[in-house]
């Protein structure tokens, strides 16, 4: 494994494995989730679910888009097949993220850790943990999944209980929270790295085409639009702007 000789730095070798750092990195996600899950709790109870049902859905799924799409199917008595297919399509992006995140795992991450951590591999947990310069370890991953999980569950409970008390205008304002969080993840990296900026813009153009060209929008579901646009944008930029090969550095140090 020493054939690709490169000088390189230590980045591939060090492993970030602090539980408290994980908790800390998860905190902004946790607080963001409080408001987003709050909105979910409100809508789930309004749709006809009990409070405990809304909370269990959040604790068992930990995914915003999938839950939002799942509740109407449940309350309208849709088939289990329909529910399964919808979740599969909307959440398929997580399989890409899981593969991607597995590449950031250091040596400390065991099989059983993957079984637990993957349960809370959300968009934000994935984006923040993989934005670390070094590999991440099991303790760090437990920290960064714990706080968002608490925020997501607690937010749903509060929203489900407070549902009808809040004025509509507040609920509307909370609706933008999760998207603002996405912006806050992408922009700092797009600022630093040109290819990321162009990849993001390219993905947005694709997304708009699929959402606004009538024929496409009518025939392709939302979940599929996300997958198609992501795969095209990722593949195009992997071809035009491949990342430098860091693997070689790590091999040298570990070998």
């Amino acid at each position: 494994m020493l054939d690709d000789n490169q000088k390189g730095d230590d980045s591939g070798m060090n492993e970030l494995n602090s539980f408290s750092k994980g908790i800390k990195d998860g905190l902004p996600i946790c607080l963001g989730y409080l408001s987003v899950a709050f909105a979910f709790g409100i809508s789930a109870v309004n749709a006809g679910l009990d409070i405990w049902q809304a909370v269990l859905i959040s604790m068992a799924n930990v995914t915003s888009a999938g839950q939002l799409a799942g509740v109407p199917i449940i309350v309208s008595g849709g088939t289990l097949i329909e529910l399964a297919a919808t979740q599969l399509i909307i959440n398929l992006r997580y399989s890409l993220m899981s593969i991607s995140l597995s590449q950031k795992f250091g040596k400390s991450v065991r099989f059983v850790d993957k079984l637990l951590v993957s349960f809370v591999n959300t968009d934000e947990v994935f984006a923040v943990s993989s934005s670390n310069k070094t590999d991440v370890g099991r303790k760090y991953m437990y920290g960064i999944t714990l706080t968002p999980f608490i925020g997501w569950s607690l937010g749903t409970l509060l929203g489900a209980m407070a549902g009808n008390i809040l004025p509509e205008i507040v609920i509307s304002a909370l609706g933008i929270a999760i998207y603002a969080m996405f912006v806050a993840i992408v922009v700092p990296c797009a600022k630093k790295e040109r290819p990321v900026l162009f990849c993001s813009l390219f993905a947005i153009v694709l997304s708009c085409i699929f959402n606004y060209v009538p024929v496409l929008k009518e025939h392709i579901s939302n979940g599929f639009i996300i997958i198609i646009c992501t795969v095209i944008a990722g593949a195009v930029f992997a071809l035009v702007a491949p990342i430098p090969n860091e693997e070689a550095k790590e091999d040298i140090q570990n070998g």
Partner: protein
Amino acid sequence: MVDAITFFKYLLVMAGVTYLVRMVPMVLVRGKIKNNFVRSFLYYVPYAVLSVMTIPAIFYSTSYIISAIIGLAVALVLSYFNRGLLTVAVFASATVLIVELILKYI
């Protein structure tokens, strides 16, 4: 209301599919991927997916498109100056609230 037995069937299917989609690929992929195309692809995926999920959905996340546009502008500016996730989310929400109050009462 959805009765408890029916609900648990739905919950099991929903959570089961969601978990498998996340867990299976993470467990199956062992060790580091060497192929540079695949590594580059996976590097771009998070940014691509978040961009696609945000636009155009963000424009329909509030009661008015105009409040969402102004909220997005605030989020872009704050993120550009490296404000944290929470700060950006709170200020974007506050902006939407203010804009919609103005639209409603003025």
